[in-house]
């Protein structure tokens, strides 16, 4: 057996050499040395892999992804109670009954400033999402154009927020004061949703109008 044949037959580091290969290994000092080093390397790699085995993604990644998952699941399909636009619609409807001032909120479209005489809406609309979002998102202009959703007031001050891009039926825009014609209601539009770590949507902006 030549050295080349030996290595052709022994590409792996782990296996036991056959009789021919073992004979070559015993007779050839060079291959013996190379093999010894390869095995030392293999042992080192196994040790490195074992040492490395405990390393995993930081827990905050799971929290963010879970928020994204809830956003996507809640926006795209079941269960109806978790759909933010139905919540927003109900809230808006109730608000309309309670005070005419809420009409302003429901019809203000993309405007994020509400009149000062509408305390709840004003409080909500006053949230500066550019300031609340992680710096890298805000720096890309990701904080602009968001419409604050009613549950944003339950957001803790240092909440870890994330922006998730989703697709929703155009009809979802109605809840936020956009006019949508019946023939286009079923169309899908892209939206960015600000999610808290609890998976609840706090603000939304539409990318396709």
């Amino acid at each position, binding site marked *: 057996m030549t050295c080349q044949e030996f290595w052709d037959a022994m590409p792996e580091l782990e296996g036991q050499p056959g009789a021919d290969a073992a004979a070559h290994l015993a*007779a050839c000092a*060079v291959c013996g040395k190379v093999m010894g080093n390869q095995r030392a390397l293999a042992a080192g790699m196994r040790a490195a892999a074992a040492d490395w085995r405990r390393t995993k993604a930081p827990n905050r990644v799971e929290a963010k992804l879970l928020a994204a998952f809830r956003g996507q699941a809640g926006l795209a399909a079941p269960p109806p109670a978790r759909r933010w636009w139905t919540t927003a619609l109900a809230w808006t409807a109730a608000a309309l009954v309670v005070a005419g001032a809420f009409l302003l909120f429901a019809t203000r479209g993309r405007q994020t400033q509400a009149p000062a005489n509408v305390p709840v809406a004003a409080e909500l609309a006053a949230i500066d999402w550019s300031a609340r979002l992680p710096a890298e998102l805000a720096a890309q202009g990701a904080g602009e154009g968001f419409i604050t959703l009613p549950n944003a007031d339950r957001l803790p001050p240092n909440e870890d927020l994330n922006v998730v891009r989703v697709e929703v039926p155009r009809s979802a825009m109605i809840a936020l004061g956009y006019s949508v014609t019946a023939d286009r209601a079923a169309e899908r539009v892209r939206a960015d949703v600000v999610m808290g770590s609890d998976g609840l949507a706090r603000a939304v902006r539409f990318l396709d109008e």
Partner: protein
Amino acid sequence: MADAPAETDDELLLRMRSGDEQAFVALYRRRQAAIYRFALHMSGSAAAAEDIIQEVFLALIRDDCGYDPERGTLSGYLFGIARKLALRQLARRRTDVALETGAGEPVPPELAAGADQLADLTRKEGVAALRRAVQALPERYREVVALCDLEEVDYAEAAFVLGCPVGTVRSRLHRARSLLLEKMRKERGAGPSGALKPVRCEI
């Protein structure tokens, strides 16, 4: 009593697609660590690896990872996305130098003449040196070492992730290991390897 067999990735994915949060969490927890480590090996940066793992699973959540169970495993797809993202990041801050020496052809056994037998690499400092050496490998060797040696992905799956034949995985791995040995010898002061002529043994 034997435990019920764990759900497969595909079963979890199916439940996840129907909005089952626990299925998503189970799938994430099952797969995240290996993919995160792979991203870390490839990018050399914890921040980059965190971005990558997040993007990989967001692609899964949005169902735009192009997964087709007929063509490969879910794990393979996730590694594949992580790889693309890592390579994209690396392209942005390309610093590939050092050990790049040739294409991925099978390599004849070579030995720097007079090189010492390598000492134990399983000790702490050996492992640390090995990690640095893996980091210094050119991308196409680093990815195969990270997958096959560090994450123990089998050759067929690695071939799927890398989009190349299994034979190429083997030959790159072989080449990568030679480069690692060379690097380790240098690191252990066996002298500048440029001064050592590669010798092919002729028996």
